[in-house]
């Protein structure tokens, strides 16, 4: 389905067309829900918090100054709401425990995976991502799935820009390590 820019719907809502808010909800509900779910790890709680996020955003829409993207703004609300729900001061971005396996190239890994069927590629990735922690999954989702910039992610999570870069670098490396190991296991089974 084709959507307009967020600013189009925001203007319509501010002009009194409440139904236009449905488009904003539909566009962003999956990522808002994903962010909250990765922090809370409970679908019912995540659904409740995600609904509150959109209600809060609606009530505050006239204060939204459009200095940042609407998506960054609402994902920040989602992140902070989920954190408040867990009663933690900050989402625990734990240190990464990476094994140093450098005896492969990323091109080799990606080339091997490209040869698999789509379904097998997805399975491979899901197994690799199962080894990531919730905060790592959150960063991967924000950066690779929804094209948020490093600055956006920094704004959403409260991490510094350099911290986000370092973490993404290490998470990517960890994914390649995992996928390389999985490919070798597959080859040894055959």
């Amino acid at each position, binding site marked *: 389905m084709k959507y*307009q820019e967020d600013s189009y719907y925001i*203007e319509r809502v501010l002009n009194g067309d409440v139904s236009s808010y449905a488009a904003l909800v539909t566009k962003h*509900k999956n990522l808002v829900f994903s962010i909250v779910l990765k922090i809370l790890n409970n679908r019912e709680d995540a659904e409740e918090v995600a609904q509150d996020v959109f209600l809060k955003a609606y009530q505050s829409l*006239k204060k939204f100054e459009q200095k940042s993207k609407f998506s960054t703004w609402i994902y920040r609300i989602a992140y902070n709401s989920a954190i408040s729900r867990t009663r933690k001061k900050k989402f625990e971005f734990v240190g990464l425990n990476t094994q140093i396996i450098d005896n492969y190239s990323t091109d080799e890994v990606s080339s091997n*995976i490209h040869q698999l069927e789509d379904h097998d590629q997805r399975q491979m*990735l899901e197994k690799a991502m199962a080894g990531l922690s919730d905060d790592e999954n959150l960063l991967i989702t924000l950066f690779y799935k929804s094209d948020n910039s490093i600055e956006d992610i920094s704004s959403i999570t409260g991490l510094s820009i350099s911290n986000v870069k370092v973490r993404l670098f290490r998470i990517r490396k960890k994914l390649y390590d995992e996928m390389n190991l999985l490919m070798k296991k597959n080859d040894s089974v055959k």
Partner: protein
Amino acid sequence: MNKDDFLNDDFIRDLIRKTPLDSPSDDFLEKIMGNIQMDPRIAPVKQPFFLWVKSAWPFALAGFILIVFLFTSDLPFTNILPGKDYFTKSFLPYFESLFAGIKNLFVQSKYTNIGLIVIFSGGLLVMLDHLLHRKTHLQHPTVIQ
């Protein structure tokens, strides 16, 4: 691995995008819209006055210029405009001294004329850009996958 490789890793990006995001329940949207429309504690969003003025000013300006033009022009069909007599015979004389001053300004210096033409043209271009931007916005929507 270079430290900035993750920025341009299309392989990982494409692979990760093949896995869908988690989705809320099917009635998620209905619940939110129901709360917004029915809960009296949630005040309806009202457009701040300045936003209304901001979006309407090009049309107001164009309308004002058109009215002034019609009431001050000698075009024959404008004689039937109601109130034109009053406007030209009773209302305009109050502004004669102001208009006379402005007229002198035009007569005395050709640079003033050029400056005013540039300002007027620039204003028209801004208005046209604003109107076209709104139209383009509607014709080129963002595709969401």
